[in-house]
């Protein structure tokens, strides 16, 4: 399964491209080395031949034909390594000295093939310089071209094997690298597959070497943590919704069942139907509140933002709830600085204030004093709604804003536990910092509106 895949990995493709480039450069290097080496070898051969010719010329000039022949013989007898071949001809073309087996036909440079005397008659190639030294005496000096071609061949073979090694090693290395990387990528992929299949607890293994893949894995893992947090909160919310809607629906059903079984007069039926309608309205109100919170949390409501008179919102809401508070045996006082303006959604801010104040009015004992304050402080707008009731245990503060959360002692009072969730959603939409504090005694909801 891995094999065809490996050829399609990024790293293998990269390695292949890299190896190809490297091989091309090795080839180019070989070509240059080959060219310059053959140029150098030819040059040296020519220089050697010319030097030999010069020596013979000098010998002839100093000691005539005799000395020339002696020099040739001496040189030929002491041949070693890359020695030269010589030939001395008289005016009739007769060979006077030297072992060069071929006779060049023209003076100057020429190249000829010869058959070696000694040995098995191998063919050889020589480069010959033929010169006339006067009096019809001609001298030929020849260098063995075979040496040059041997060198060239050696260089060629050397570079060819280097080229082969580069390609082979490159392919092997590329495969190895791809395999190693593919394995790590494959683990990431398998983790993702497992998560897709539903196991959200899976995490990408981190090798602890802090390389790029490790960092990628860590980022993926934190993303997965976040997602699983979100999903579990979503699950929680869904479960809460199901539970909190089931309860009133069950109550409704029980009521209707009882009505069917026990009620006889039309008036009684009417009363039962009315109570059923009240239950249904409660359920609808819960749905409506949930949808509203969801819409606010989606953040699209910012299009409704205007320059609003926050003081007016505070006073209107406080004023609206004051008589209801009074009737419930509580007092509601307000101290609101006028003309404080804020950029926000009038309707939502009104509802936020209504929910906070309503919460204070509903969930406090008789005789408490509720206070609503709004003022500007160091450029920030501070809103406070406080009461001197029982307060809330400090460990519950965080959970007050959760959907459907209700304190134990509030379970019996009407409400759906969504009021403060909506407050939180509106506050978040407006970047209002919302804090719940103990007020010694009682509870204080503190709002800090951004300037």
């Amino acid at each position, binding site marked *: 399964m891995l094999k065809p895949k490996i050829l399609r990995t990024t790293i293998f493709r990269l390695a292949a491209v890299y190896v190809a480039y490297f091989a091309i450069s090795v080839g180019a290097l070989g070509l240059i080395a080959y060219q310059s080496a053959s140029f150098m070898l030819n040059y040296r051969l020519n220089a050697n031949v010319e030097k030999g010719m010069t020596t013979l010329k000098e010998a002839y000039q100093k000691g005539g034909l005799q000395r020339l022949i002696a020099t040739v013989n001496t040189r030929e007898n002491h041949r070693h390594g890359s020695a030269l071949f010589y030939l001395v001809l008289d005016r009739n073309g007769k060979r006077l000295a030297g072992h060069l087996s071929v006779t060049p036909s023209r003076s100057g440079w020429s190249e000829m093939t010869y058959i070696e005397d000694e040995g098995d008659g191998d063919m050889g190639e020589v480069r010959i310089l033929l010169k006339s030294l006067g009096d019809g005496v001609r001298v030929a000096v020849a260098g063995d071209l075979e040496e040059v071609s041997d060198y060239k061949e050696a260089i060629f073979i050397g570079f060819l094997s280097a080229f082969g090694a580069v390609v082979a090693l490159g392919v092997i290395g590329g495969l190895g690298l791809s395999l190693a990387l593919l394995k790590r990528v494959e683990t990431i992929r398998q983790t993702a597959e497992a998560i897709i299949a539903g196991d959200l607890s899976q995490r990408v293994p981190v090798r602890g070497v802090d390389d790029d893949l490790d960092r990628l894995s860590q980022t993926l893992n934190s993303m997965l943590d976040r997602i699983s947090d979100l999903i579990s909160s979503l699950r929680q919310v869904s479960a809460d919704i199901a539970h909190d809607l089931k309860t009133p629906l069950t109550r409704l059903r029980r009521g209707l069942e009882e009505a069917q079984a026990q009620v006889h007069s039309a008036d009684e039926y009417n009363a039962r139907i*009315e109570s059923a309608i009240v239950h249904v309205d409660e359920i*609808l*109100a819960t*749905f*409506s509140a*949930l*949808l*509203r919170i*969801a*819409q*606010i949390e989606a953040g*699209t*409501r910012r*299009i*409704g933002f205007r320059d609003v008179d926050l003081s007016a919102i505070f006073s*209107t809401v406080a*004023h*609206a*709830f004051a*008589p*209801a508070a*009074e*009737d419930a045996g509580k007092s509601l006082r307000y101290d609101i600085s006028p003309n404080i303006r804020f950029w926000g959604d*009038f*309707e939502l801010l*009104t*509802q936020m204030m*209504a929910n906070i104040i*309503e919460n204070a*009015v*509903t969930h406090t004992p008789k005789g408490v004093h509720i206070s609503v304050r709004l003022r500007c402080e160091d450029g920030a707008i501070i809103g406070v709604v406080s009461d001197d009731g029982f307060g809330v245990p400090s460990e519950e503060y965080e959970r007050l804003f959760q959907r459907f959360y209700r304190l134990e002692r509030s379970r019996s009072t*009407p*409400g759906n536990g969504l*009021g403060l969730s909506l407050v939180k959603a509106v506050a978040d939409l407006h970047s209002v910092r919302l804090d719940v504090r103990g007020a010694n005694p009682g509870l204080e909801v503190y709002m800090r509106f951004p300037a």
Partner: protein
Amino acid sequence: MRVLIVEDDAETAAYVIKGLCEHGHFADHASNGRDGFFAASTGSYDVAIVDRMLPAIDGLSLVRQLRGQGIGTPVLFLTNLGGLDDRVEGLNAGGDDYLVKPFAFSEVMARVNALARRPAITAAVTVLRCGDLEIDLLKRSVRRGGCRIDLQPREFKLLEFLARHVDRVVTRTMLLEMVWDFHFDPKTNIVETHMSRLRAKVDRGFECELIRTVRGAGYLLSAQA
């Protein structure tokens, strides 16, 4: 009164039509936007009840086109539960009022009545009367039987709204929207507590009660016995 209802949900439409007929009104029904538009463009209706979500032409476009043709039939939009921006959009498109589904028929009836008899020009009215109650909108003063009644600004607004709809039922939701600008439903009995204070000032010591509670529907300001 002739009412056009443009609503694709047959059950909702039947519910509203039945109620309207029982109250002695005539109701026509169109089940999609196009039919609704053709029916409404005759201009022969006193009120149109238009659902926001409609096949063929949606409610917003329908009302925009009507207004574009210069037809001023009052329109009551029906919007879905939780449509947060629907109200503003609907009013901007030329709607006159809105109602969130699901609704009680009494709510529809009260709003249709309020829309149908909305006076074309309100600026000329400076004094509202109901029996021996007299509300001076300019001086913002209230007298009953010659005696001055001191009202707080919000109580005045409440009474003014009742007086503008004299002899018609206004619902609790209408009052929340129009008097307090609250477009949500508080659990607290805000309307009831304010109303009882207003009643104490307006009706206490007088033989005839002007402000009445209509059970299951709302309130009514009326001098008729």
